[in-house]
């Protein structure tokens, strides 16, 4: 298996190497592109002088707080609509007419209301996370094994106890999946907002480097965004496995 | 065992397994298999679970090549699957194309054989009619019961107009009633087409009921442990045949063999 994993590395390694050789051999395109080695150097320097870390902090802050706001509202609405079909049917048209609006389309509105800064980023990230969490939480709650609900009724649990003792624990693994997907989207949207309008964070740093004709710095940031994105997702996956590993196994045994 | 292509009954042989051995993943699965299959006969293969029945059938189908010895079909080595050898898998649910209707699934065999489009329609209808699916030509596999799905797989194989039908526990997953009617349909199709059938099964009674001969395999590695001729009159009948003393005697003989072979482990 680990040899398969090594094989997966061959292709990217070759691509980087080819890129390096190509740009070293023909340095004409150097205004737009820089060899990978130069990008790595620029990234190392940015990390050393703290500028990269500062930008990372801004981006992560935007993603995390936006995620916090959006996914809590989404979770609440998802549980409610999942548990109460009448409410779900009542809200359906409203939800389905707001959901398809691309979140970046709300950027200019956010800009008018909040101006540049954190609040703009929070609001756009939150919109994305809200709907992602809402939809998946709702289906997680609806998917709770009907037999479990029968058990709850047979035990004469109160409605509140039914939710806290049966529904939420049963739907929790799925709800966490919803959270993980929303979190993935949060980082993507934060970077996108910065690239598009908001003058802060990693996205904006990348745009600035491009405008300053520093392709090495720009590609260094691209590399760094890749690393941050990878770690962000890996951490979430790890948390999911750690928290729900046993639940997932018993799920499969059923 | 004779080297000639003729056997004692005077009928030509279709398959000859000559000292066949097969190693998979470093494990010896089959060893020293000597089997002759006569043209037009029904040969049933029984044996404990995991003794290599499916593997033997896959060799006959050309899906595996022997690591030792040779599998001859019509006198020539079987090196790859052939158009005139059809395989019927046990898990019919997975062996059908879920995105094609019954007609489409049978058509696949004809497309593979490069049958001209003009000829296909008639042959598809004929194949479906033979297995009693004429009225279900436009149904998707997911709209069919298990028995119908297995009939559909048989129809696809019949469309190949095969010399040999290789059936791997084809009725194992079906209920008793459906199984009995499919057994009788298989006998009718056999009488009708004259194809040679190799039939793998777990069910000893099924093997005797269908077969001209029954071969029992011993496990670890798989090898031939018993070979019996079934001298029961044809056409056979679910009630009468199963009550014949000869039937009961053969059942006893096979039962003892299987019990002994399981003790072998």
């Amino acid at each position, binding site marked *: 298996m680990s040899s398969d994993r090594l094989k997966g590395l061959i292709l990217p390694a070759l691509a980087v190497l080819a890129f390096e050789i190509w740009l070293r051999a023909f340095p004409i395109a150097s205004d737009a592109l820089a060899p990978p080695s130069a990008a790595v150097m620029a990234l190392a320097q940015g990390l050393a002088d703290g500028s990269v870390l500062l930008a990372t902090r801004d981006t992560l802050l935007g993603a995390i707080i936006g995620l916090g706001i959006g996914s809590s509202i989404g979770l609440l609405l998802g549980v409610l609509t999942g548990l109460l079909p009448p409410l779900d049917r009542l809200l359906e048209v409203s939800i*389905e007419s707001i959901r398809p609006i691309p979140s970046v389309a709300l950027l200019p509105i956010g800009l008018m209301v909040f101006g540049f800064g954190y609040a703009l980023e929070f609001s756009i990230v939150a919109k994305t996370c809200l709907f992602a969490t809402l939809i998946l939480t709702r289906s997680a709650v609806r998917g709770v094994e009907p037999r479990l609900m029968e058990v709850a009724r047979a035990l004469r649990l109160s409605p509140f106890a039914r939710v806290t003792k049966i529904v939420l624990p049963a739907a929790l693994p799925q709800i966490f999946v919803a959270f993980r997907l929303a979190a993935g989207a949060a980082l993507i949207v934060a970077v996108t907002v910065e*690239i598009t309008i908001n003058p802060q964070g990693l996205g904006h740093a990348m745009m600035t480097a491009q405008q300053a004709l520093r392709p090495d710095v720009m590609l260094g940031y691209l590399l760094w965004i*890749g690393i941050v994105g990878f770690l962000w997702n890996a951490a979430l996956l790890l948390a999911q496995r750690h928290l729900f590993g046993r639940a997932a196994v018993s799920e499969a045994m059923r | 065992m004779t080297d000639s292509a003729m056997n004692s009954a005077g009928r030509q042989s279709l398959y000859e397994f000559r000292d066949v051995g097969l190693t998979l993943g470093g494990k010896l699965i089959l060893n020293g298999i000597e089997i002759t299959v006569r043209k037009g006969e029904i040969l049933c293969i029984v044996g404990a679970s995991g003794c290599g029945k499916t593997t033997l059938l896959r060799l006959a189908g050309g899906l595996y090549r022997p690591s030792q010895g040779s599998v001859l079909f019509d006198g020539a080595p079987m090196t790859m699957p052939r158009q005139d050898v059809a395989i019927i898998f046990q898990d019919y649910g997975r062996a059908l194309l879920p995105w094609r209707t019954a007609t489409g699934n049978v058509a696949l065999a004809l497309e593979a054989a490069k049958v001209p489009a003009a000829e296909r329609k008639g042959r598809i209808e004929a194949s479906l009619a033979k297995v009693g699916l004429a009225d279900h030509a436009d149904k*998707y596999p997911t709209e069919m019961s298990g028995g119908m799905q297995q009939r559909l797989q048989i129809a696809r194989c019949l469309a190949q107009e095969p010399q040999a039908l290789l059936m791997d526990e084809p009725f194992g997953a079906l209920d008793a009633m459906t199984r009995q009617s499919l057994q009788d349909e298989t006998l009718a199709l056999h009488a009708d087409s004259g194809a040679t059938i190799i039939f793998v099964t777990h069910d000893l009674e099924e093997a005797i009921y269908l077969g001209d001969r029954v071969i029992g395999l011993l496990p670890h590695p798989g090898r031939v442990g018993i070979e019996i001729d079934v001298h029961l009159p044809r056409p056979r009948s679910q009630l009468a045949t199963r009550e014949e003393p000869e039937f009961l005697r053969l059942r006893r003989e096979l039962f003892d063999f299987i019990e002994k072979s399981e003790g072998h482990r």
Partner: protein
Amino acid sequence: MTPLAQISWRIASFAFAASLVVAWQLVANAQLISPIFLPGPDRAWAALVNGFTDRGLGGKLVGTLRHMTFGWLAASIAAIALGSLIGSSRRARIYVAPSLEFLRPLPVSAIIPVAIALYGLSEGMAIFVIAFGTLWPMLLATIQGYAGVEPRLLEVARALNLSRLETVTKISLPSAMPDILAGMRVSLTVALILSVVCEIVAGLDGLGQWILISARMFRSPDLFAGVILLGAVGYLAAAIIAEVERRLLAWRKTH
């Protein structure tokens, strides 16, 4: 649920949405929020109609649709062709899939500065970004679809002596279709987002540019008209591809 109950719920649901619009109108009329930020639905609607009749909003709509569909279609074709090549070989999958898995969660918009460096603030840049950004998820979906083909069906193909090409067109591709279409559906949403972003960043003719300029000039009715239109595009795009999926995958539902 009876059909009557279903229809009643639909009506109730629309009524609820309508009451939200009315509330929006009342809030706007009462000027609880400055009309500079929040136009009433009446003014937004008027701006929408007016935009189409004499302000060239239709052209902007076409621009956005052009960017999104060109990039997405190019990527779809490339992804299906390339994905079929890679996906039908187990060995190729081992070499390629990990890289794609790695690329998948990355913020694709980060490619925009690179694309600007390469292509300038041009329409070509936008189409490159959209094609690039939607290619990877679709390629991965296609490869996964091929990896998930029922092994028994591949054996049936062997038993029938199907050629490699026939095996792909008759067995693997139809079997991978649900995954491919799912990838295309997700990517279409991404394509719309990237179109808007590129139009904003590069000032390209499209709805992204329209809403940005409206915001900069504090013409909030125009801004809301653009946002509503983008919502409609998102809705219709999803509806169309869902219908295509429903038709092509009709065999999956029948049970």
